[in-house]
């Protein structure tokens, strides 16, 4: 029952978001102004995140838990210093969301040989696991017989 569900990530000026659609997919950006209930003005400064200033709908954004303390329409340099102060990039790379995206990217890019190697690795791993399991079960059955 979600009666006491609390929102922790808000759309607000300074919120760092990840773009999840379009050519800037996967990149971080900061909200520098809000247009209306559907759109925000956003820039990951172009020098830092390669995201140019643009209006982007919230449908295309995933809010992260990071928020910068910036004014409306903050300058690029402002945002970059706040980014570096808060070590946002480092913290972002530790997020599971980011790690999963990286994993998916790697998997998507593996070629047939890579998939073959993966298959062999899986087989080897499952062989190890099953042999261990067998040993454990025979041990326990020996114990039970007694």
């Amino acid at each position, binding site marked *: 029952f979600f009666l006491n569900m609390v929102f922790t990530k808000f*759309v*607000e000026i300074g919120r760092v978001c990840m773009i*999840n659609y379009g050519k800037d997919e996967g990149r971080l950006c900061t909200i520098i102004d809000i247009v*209306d*209930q559907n759109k925000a003005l956003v820039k990951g400064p172009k020098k830092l995140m390669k995201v140019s*200033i643009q*209006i982007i709908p919230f449908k295309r954004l995933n809010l992260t838990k990071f928020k910068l303390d910036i004014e409306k*329409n903050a300058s690029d340099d402002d945002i970059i210093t706040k980014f570096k102060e808060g070590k946002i990039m480092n913290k972002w790379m530790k997020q599971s969301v980011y790690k999963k995206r990286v994993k998916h990217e790697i998997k998507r890019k593996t070629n047939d040989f890579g998939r073959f190697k993966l298959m062999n690795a899986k087989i080897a791993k499952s062989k190890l696991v099953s042999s261990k399991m067998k040993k454990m079960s025979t041990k326990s059955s020996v114990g039970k017989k007694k």
Partner: protein
Amino acid sequence: MRLHHYQIVGRKQPTEHEAEPPVFKMRVFAENKVRAISKFWYLIHQMKKMKKTTGEILDVREIFEKNPTVIENYGIWLRYDSRSGTHNMYREYRDLLLTGAVEQMYCDMAGRHRCRPRSIKIIRTGIIKPEDVKRKNMLQFQDPKVKFPLAHRIARPPNKQ
């Protein structure tokens, strides 16, 4: 289609009777220069005794936004024909560009009033200061510390495929 903001200056062609006809300037929103000129003649013909065949265009200039990276509140005064009459209206939109706000207005009028672009005539446009904003939906976003959560998020595929 992307609208552009043009300033068009025109007058009647000078004749023996009238050597220096008055010059009129009009600001028009159109997709391109050709349509802008056409709209100029259509509108000015309704207001003054001037038409394309006896008139001349002196200047057509595109007007660009002064600050295209800052969101402004735009007020648009318009006149439109509904099914049963013609009315005046004042609408407000938030956008980076005046042309963006005008595009929003056309879409909004079509959606809310079933009003086609041909029935809409823009009387006046302007940037509204945050203190003078009238519409409740716009007032919400004037506060610089506005914040809201995104409830009911739906996972979307990252591309059209």
